[in-house]
């Protein structure tokens, strides 16, 4: 029982990270209907931006470094969209997919040159708390709180603001929204800014919890991808639920089967889930997505 509780806590921590990364992914899909394979690499860049700010001569404290890095990554996300995806908005789906892969190559390699390939850590000291039989560190508390705050913030943005309304409209029908007078280019930029910011947050939180590597983006992409599809492509809340499910099942799963199959578990449940419910847990029947459905 004690072990089970601890496993659940561990699963929630992992799930929170996956969910954060998955949100940006699913929002981009909801709007532009393409799989943004560079998403994990963008998260990685965010994590390294915070690292550079915190450890270089600047010695920015961790909290402002976090926000500056998130801001930086948001801007980067918008620029990437303008350079690599916007010209391909009406091209076949494979085209933006290809440039996304290329963008991730470029980002990974750029970080390798600028910061180096070795593994880095933020070296933030942590404390261990025990709640009954369960152990949790101060960093993990931050991870959970931060991911919840960001998710609630996103919900408010989507449901309560004009921008949120515009995002939903564009996700529903890009051409029609344009006709209706919505500035679609601005809206898409906003989606990339928000998605990249959340990716950066997840990258930094993963880095805080473990370490940083220029190639860490790929696994983030893969796990977030799984979470997004499980939740239903284009559905923000589905992605969050999908992230938590994958985090939990992975952690509980390796208790019973050898952990060498850990990455297979994520895909195992994903494949199984799709067979039972081909559009994902919260996907709409026609697979058009829609951020709020």
């Amino acid at each position, binding site marked *: 029982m004690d*072990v089970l509780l*601890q*496993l659940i806590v*561990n699963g929630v*921590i*992992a799930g929170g990270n996956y969910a954060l990364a998955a949100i940006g992914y699913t929002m981009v899909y909801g709007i532009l209907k393409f799989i943004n394979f560079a998403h994990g690499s963008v998260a990685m860049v965010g994590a390294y931006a915070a690292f550079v700010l915190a450890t270089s001569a600047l010695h920015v404290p961790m909290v402002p470094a976090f926000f500056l890095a998130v801001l930086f990554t948001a801007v980067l996300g918008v620029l990437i969209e303008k350079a690599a995806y916007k010209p391909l908005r009406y091209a076949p789906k494979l085209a933006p997919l290809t440039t996304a892969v290329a963008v991730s190559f470029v980002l990974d*390699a750029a970080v*390798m040159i600028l910061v*180096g*390939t*070795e*593994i*880095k*850590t933020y*070296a933030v*000291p*942590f404390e*261990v708390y*025990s709640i009954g039989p369960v*152990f*949790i*560190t101060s960093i*993990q508390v931050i991870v959970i709180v931060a991911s919840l705050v960001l998710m609630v913030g996103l919900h408010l943005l989507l449901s309560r603001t004009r921008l949120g309304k515009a995002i939903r409209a564009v996700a529903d029908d890009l051409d029609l929204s344009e006709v209706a007078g919505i500035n679609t280019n601005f809206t898409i930029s906003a989606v990339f800014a928000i998605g990249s910011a959340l990716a950066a947050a997840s990258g930094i939180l*993963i880095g805080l*919890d*473990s*370490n940083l*590597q*220029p*190639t*860490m983006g790929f*696994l983030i992409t893969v796990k977030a991808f799984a979470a997004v599809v499980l939740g239903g492509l284009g559905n923000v809340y589905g992605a969050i639920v999908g992230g938590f499910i994958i985090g939990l099942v*992975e*952690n*509980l799963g*390796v*208790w019973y089967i*050898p*952990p*060498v199959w*850990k*990455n297979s578990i994520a895909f195992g449940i994903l494949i199984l889930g799709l067979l039972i419910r081909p559009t994902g847990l919260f996907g709409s029947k026609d697979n058009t997505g829609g951020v709020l459905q």
Partner: protein
Amino acid sequence: MKGKRRFAWMTGMLMMGLLLVLSTAPAGAADPYTIGFVNHLTGDMGPYGQSLKKGVDLAVDQINAAGGVKGHPLKVIFEDDRGQAADAITAFTKLAEVDKVPVVLGSASSTVTLAICAKAQESKVVLVSSVSTAPSLKECGKYFFSMMVSDDAQGEEWVRVANHLKVKNVAVMFINNDYGNGVKNVFVKAFTAAGGKILIEQPFEDGGKDFRTEVLKVKQAKPEAVFIVDHTAEGAIVIKQAKELQLSVPFVTDVSMVAKETLEGAGAAAEGVMGVRAASPSGPVWEKFKADFNTKFKTEPTIWADFAFDTMMMVAKAIELGGYSADGIQQGMFKAGETYVGPSGTKKLNPHGIALGTFEWVVVKNGTWVTYQK
């Protein structure tokens, strides 16, 4: 019209590609002695190759500052194998044929080294691996050398550590690859034979960042000590997460994990972790290497950099003793090994060209690896 333009484009690109391939500036048989280096410089395993490269760079600096080998400066050509056999063969063939090097410093991955080893025998180029340990490499041929101590020696050294710590019931955590399995198997066999008990053998996957469930499993088995083998990235996280989950028993690492990455990755949790290190019984060699490395790269020695440093030094010595040719180096390696002592220990070679090695015990104190006082 359009088709024509496209065709022009295409031929243009094709020409460019061919030009790139053919524009091989001949390395020139001028003054420097060129030496090849094949390793993963990019990709998931990139950090290991980069770390090995640092060790080689440092050795080359020192050799050239001292006037080179027989008056010839050394020049190393670095090639990336991306961790893949096909790319490694491309890289190796390029070094052997185009750059015409008589000796290549080999890859960190045993699988890649195995793939190019046959090629090395065929083209009569000496292949010296810094850290590949797979038993199958022994049969590869006379042009192969390894500077890493064998899995057998490491596993047996662990048994001595366990006896010293007076622990009878232990856990082993190992990276799920040939190296991790190799060291684990030797240790399990030797320790059980010596009357000890292995409570749990817990593998973990490379590239992961969350090993809490694995740690919990080990904790549940209630071991008196945990023996862990990895090449730092995952192992450091395991040590950190073990601390978080209050698995408070002694941790003992393998040779590879005695590196800066473990200290950084595990942070404060690394304090008190023990390790075995391939070393000469005398300390100053290591201390000097550590200081030199720090001066050049502004960090503590990274993983396997000491082995790479020794590999380069051994090869330089072998050239000095046997001459700048594959057969000369092949002979020279054995002679050089008789007397060489470097930061990763003595390099007396067995008949297969594999270093025998001796060990030293170390422990993390105040954030750095220091000699363990028995």
